[in-house]
């Protein structure tokens, strides 16, 4: 087991290294000079040349790459070309925004998804089951950027219940401590602002939750159905235990493993895959940060940003796999 863990962790290194190479070359293959972008349409040729030199972008690629990797090995993520700020400092607020959004989305997805899945399995082939599963199928078929826009139109523009975009009210800005605003507002004990943050979270997290919710619901259902057919559960039922207990305690305990996997994988996917949702809701998250950086050709930000997301993603997967291994002894390690 331990050697399996060690091997899995070690395997992360070549992957991250390979990624750094891929990203490095890919962004340099995109036409367009960062210096030109920063200086804008009105810049003179001399200005562009001077800035290119200052940024070291006129050096051969291997020099640039070695410098970058050298920095990384010393824990230096580099500096943003555009703002000049160290990325390690700059990135956290964006990452925090995405983490908050993803966790909120996962919370919704898990609560609704797991319960819907359980009820569907419990009352298999009931109208609830049918409706829930059809909704789940529609959910996975939904372009979420479309869903987000429709939500905005309905809840924000037509009904005027919730704010259209952003994380906070500009007129009543939140003093960041951890940059997870739900936490920050609780820490500062400002309930008004806490509600504000919740309101801003509702629409984007609902949009983002749709797909994982649907997947979790389907997974929970099928996994529950399998468990509930087992002798063990039949016995429990035969013993006259209340159905609620049978379902929620005994069956769920046994059915939860594949569901956990899905939850882990989906959380990882949300972290980097929320670009469109972040765009539509002007959510200052990491996906948007990197996407904008592509527009500005901010090479260091793109490189380090993608590497950070990938690292998180890989480690979430790793943890899921390990958990899986711990919970389910039937798994072989090869």
């Amino acid at each position, binding site marked *: 087991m331990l050697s399996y863990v060690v091997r899995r962790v070690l395997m992360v290194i070549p992957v991250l290294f390979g990624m750094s190479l891929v990203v490095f070359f890919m962004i340099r293959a*995109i*036409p*367009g*000079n*960062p210096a*030109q*972008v*920063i*200086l*804008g*349409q*009105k*810049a*003179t*040729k*001399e*200005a562009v*040349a*001077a*800035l290119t*030199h200052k940024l070291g972008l006129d050096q051969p690629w291997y020099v640039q790459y070695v410098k970058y990797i050298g920095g990384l090995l010393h824990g230096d993520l580099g500096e943003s070309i*555009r*703002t*000049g700020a160290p990325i390690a400092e*700059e990135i956290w607020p964006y990452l925090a925004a995405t983490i908050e959004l993803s966790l909120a989305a996962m919370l919704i997805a898990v*609560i*609704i998804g797991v*319960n819907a899945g359980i009820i569907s399995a419990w*009352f298999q082939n009931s109208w609830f089951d049918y409706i829930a599963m059809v909704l789940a199928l529609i959910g996975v078929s939904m372009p979420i950027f479309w869903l987000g826009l429709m939500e*905005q139109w309905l*809840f*924000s*523009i037509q009904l*005027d*219940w*919730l*704010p*259209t*975009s*952003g994380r906070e*009210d*500009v*007129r*009543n*800005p939140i003093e960041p401590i951890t940059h997870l605003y739900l936490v920050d507002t609780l820490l500062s004990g400002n309930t*008004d602002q806490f*509600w*504000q943050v*919740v*309101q801003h979270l*509702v629409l984007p997290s609902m949009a983002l939750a749709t797909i994982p919710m649907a997947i979790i619901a389907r997974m929970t259902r099928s996994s529950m159905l399998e468990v509930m057919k087992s002798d063990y559960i039949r016995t429990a039922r035969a013993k006259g235990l209340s159905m*609620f207990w049978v379902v929620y305690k005994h069956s769920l305990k046994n059915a939860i493993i594949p569901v956990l996997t899905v939850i882990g994988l989906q959380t990882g996917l949300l972290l980097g895959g929320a670009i469109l949702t972040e765009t539509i809701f*002007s959510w*200052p998250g990491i996906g948007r*940060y990197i996407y*904008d950086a*592509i*527009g*500005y*050709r901010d090479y260091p930000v793109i490189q380090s940003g993608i590497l950070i997301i990938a690292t998180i993603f890989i480690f979430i997967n790793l943890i899921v796999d390990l958990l899986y291994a711990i919970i389910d002894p039937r798994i072989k390690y090869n």
Partner: protein
Amino acid sequence: MKRKTWFTWLALMLAVMLVLAGCGKSKQTAGGGGDKSSTQDTLVYGRGGDSVSLDPATVTDGESLKVTKNIFDTLLDYNDNDTSIKPALATEWTISNDGLTYTFKLRQGVKFHDGTEFNADAVVFNFERWANGNADKFPYYGSMFGGYKQDDSHVIKEVKALDKYTVQFVLKRPQAPFLKNLAMTPFAIASPEAVKKYGDKFGEHPVGTGPFVFKEWKRNERIVLEKNKDYWEKGYPKLNQLIFVSIPDNSARLNALLKGEIDIMEDLNPTDLKQVEGNKEFQIFKRPSMNVAYVGLTATRGPLKNKLVRQALNYAVDKKAIIDAFYAGQAEPAKNPMPPSIPGYNDAIQDYPFDLNKAKELLAKAGYPNGFEIELWAMPVPRPYMPDGQKIAEAIQANFAKIGVKAKIVTYEWATYLDKLAKGEADAFLLGWTGDNGDADNFLYALLDKDSIGSNNYTYFSNDELHDILVEAQTVSDENKRNELYKKAQEIIKEEAPWIPLVHSTPLLAGKANIQGFHPHPTGSDKFTKVEFR
């Protein structure tokens, strides 16, 4: 029984969600309505992007200058609605007869936000700082004043403090738009102490003499400025706080305005004009036009090498329809490369009318009776002069199709777009320009002279006669003679047709109805000194 438990549970969850939503509503109104009792004194200005740096001399982007305009003052300033000059930090000035010596009397008793005093030494310090820089550090300085200290083309010979409140500029050669240049937002006077203290980080800690003091900058989200209580213009500014927020999407920004999250929004989609006009709570602000949108016809590529073809394409575009559909009428058709408000504009020029037969005739004459295929590049980003490049390209594509010219719409991301244009890789392309200082040179020379090929002359249009005229005009200080030269230049451009000039648009802003004293300036940078809520 058990089913019931379940449905109760479900109902409970639904109820919680509804309450959440309900809370949303009540809080929302509380937040928005709270302002109504007392007069609002914080103005939130919604715009499309964040600033790059708040050291005005180091930037070229409008989003930075918009903010620094309120933190800093320049020696001279533009009047509210045009680019004529008025005193600012300099109260009066004299010009020697040979046009080489400018002497400025400075305003007394002005303090920088850090408490240090504004005087002649501070002015000299700033100009020395820029002149000793290079194109990378202070790009605008080089392009407006002919280079830097070591360059022969550098216009300014020296800047000296005659006494505590008198500064003298000695030029190497006359520069017609010198005063207008001094009024440009980038050439704002910064606190020498703060510049020394913060060094490279001055752009994050800007200290000037302006109506607002820098308070906070959260990248990509907001910049907060606070009232300068000791501002030299007594009784101003009226606002207590000025907040710039970035909302990239035009329609998202409008939603934010409609919901009261912001007070003024920039770049209203012309197509949304009606919606805002019909709403009593809001008003429309129109920024006087100082721009031009055009289709560049790269003079070095394929059929476009032929002047007749370029003229034919000029006949084929229905500017009126484009203005009605995509500018909601808020633009005027362009016939020259610069807008009518610029001195030297040649109004005698007759535009190519929309005439498909004439266009076909010219094409036939040029040897393309059945048309040809070209690429038409569409701008990927909205700009005030071109709110939606893609759609305007589609309209022009349809126009061209009628004379047999099959245009394939191509687009690249903005950075790539400019890069490829500068290399002359496009056939026909959409682009535009907003003037910096209201001078003809800033349009004609910058966009169409052969010297500008590789930077802003993306059409690769090169004409020696035009070049001679434009260079001569740069040094002529007699206003009338200068204007005559520019009028001649526009005739050449009309005949050679390196562009299809499309429109001069009136950029639209929308804001709350109770905002007073806001006059959008043609340069795109507004001073909020006199703005207030009623």
